[in-house]
């Protein structure tokens, strides 16, 4: 592989969606890596008091939510495309049902474009009939909602794409 090909490759890589490329060709070992365009932030889940909730019965056993771990590097669904540079993902720390509002007829906690303060509830993660309030860890703007209301979300699944304020 000549220099021109390598330069062209770097060019293509820079403009493309790839974040990492590793190539072995004869004596050449080339690694291209972007300074992480995606930063995964751990989030805090507060096992909150039962709220007027989408599921009718909140009298289940008192189960504590799993404490979130340091940044998640693996297990994320592959279909992450971020709208803009500097965006961050808020991911689910548990296996749960994702609810955007406190009740079926209530308005959503946040919408695209909402600006939220640290500590503000952004969604409910229902697990074993416990309504866990997911709170924003920092002031941010919601760029997009990545999960469907009422759907199952797994550990590490992106819920919101946000931008720090």
């Amino acid at each position, binding site marked *: 592989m000549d220099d021109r090909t390598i330069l062209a490759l770097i060019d293509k890589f820079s403009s493309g969606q790839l974040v990492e490329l590793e190539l072995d060709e004869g004596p050449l070992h080339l690694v291209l890596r972007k300074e992480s365009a995606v930063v995964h932030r751990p989030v805090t889940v507060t096992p909150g008091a039962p709220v007027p909730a989408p599921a009718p019965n909140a009298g289940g*056993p008192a*189960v504590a*939510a*799993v*404490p979130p*771990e340091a940044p*998640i*590097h*693996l*297990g994320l669904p592959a279909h992450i495309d971020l709208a803009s540079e500097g965006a961050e993902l808020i991911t689910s720390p*548990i*296996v*749960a*049902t994702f609810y955007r509002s406190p009740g079926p007829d209530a308005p959503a906690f946040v919408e695209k474009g909402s600006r939220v303060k640290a500590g503000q509830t952004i969604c409910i993660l229902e*697990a*074993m009939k416990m309504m866990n309030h997911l709170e924003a860890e920092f002031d941010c703007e919601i760029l997009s909602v990545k999960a469907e209301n009422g759907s*199952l979300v*797994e*550990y*590490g*699944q992106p819920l919101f794409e946000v931008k720090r304020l």
Partner: protein
Amino acid sequence: MIQRLLIANRGEIAVRVIRTCREMGIETVAVYSTADKDNLHVRLADKAICIGPPASAKSYLVRENLIMAALRSSCQAIHPGVGFLSENADFARAVKKEGLIFIGPDPEVIDLLGDKVQARNTAKKYGLPITPGTEGAVSDSAKAVAAAEKLGYPVIIKAAAGGGGKGMRIVRSSAELPENLAIASREAEANFADGTVFIERYLENPRHVELQIIADGNGTVAVLGERDCSVQKRHQKLIEESPSPGVDDDMRRRMAEGAVRMFRELRYQGAGTIEFLVSGKDFYFMEVNARVQVEHPVSEYVTGVDIIRQQILACTEGRLEVDPQSITINGWSIECRINALTPGTISRLDVPGGPGVRWDSFLYNGCTVPPHYDSMVGKLIVHGSNRERALARMDRALGELSIGGIKTNAQQQRWIINHPTFRSGNFGTAFYAEIEKEVEHVR
């Protein structure tokens, strides 16, 4: 028949359950930690759900995540596999509470069998011999000497509240007894805040023999022969075979009679194993494992019964497809556990084949063996018309097995199965410790 089942486990056993489910037309949902996202069970299952970070305590052991995953993916049942939550009565209870089927016995049965003293008393009630010992606690040294002399030396002093070897003392003569009794009691007091000790006859180099049981929960109990698991490295089984070279027809019949009575009375449901220590012509009840076991394939080979299939049918429909009276043992089967000695990425994988060879594993070329979990990466199982032929086949198959990228114990296993003592069939649980130094030099 249920339509969908979640497997609350990983690795080889998850793959094993998926395979039978696929043959039964049951869809499978796998769960995985972030360290296992490319594991074979995730690839083979119809659906996979990430349940947490690598540490088992935050993924495979988090009941809420497992149950939520099952509920929200419309599963009707959860198979716990082996290890993790497979013998956790509270998990079984939580699963049932949510209206799901737990593929295992009733939580009350799990609780009873999990308590060593209760299990021992239950076995005794149904006529199974237990290791001879003092009925209750001993504290007076004169009475202890009398009891020990009646039992016959060597004896072992055990803490009533104990476990993990604490407060245990092996005594070989009356002269040593009073002093050891005092030490054991002090140790027990220090460790368990209870100085109560009792005395049992100590079995030197016994065989570990177990019966494979399947039961429908309605009183039908089938025994799928016995397994000999005497090759153990510090209580970790390494090689298993069926039948056992140390069990004759009479002992086999006596073991099965008591076991069937016990499992029938317990209304046991699913697959289970009853373990015994065998010393000469005597056998003693040890414990029951209320789940399927790693070494179940050797019993499958000699009986032709798919144990996972029967377990699922027993727990979901209360029935078995096998008639307990018509089970026959054909030939000989041996299993070698293949354990990773280092984690890493598999760079090459050559799997043995040919007649009478079975390879149960989660490995594939390019997969990763994470450092977070059990070291077993595969099981090599062979079948032959007799022990000698099965061993020749195992030797041949281990020679064909080649795993690149990680270190395994495959060649050590080959060395053991060719050892004259192993070949003689005359060995017990102390065998491995005798050869350990030599085994560890095998590469």
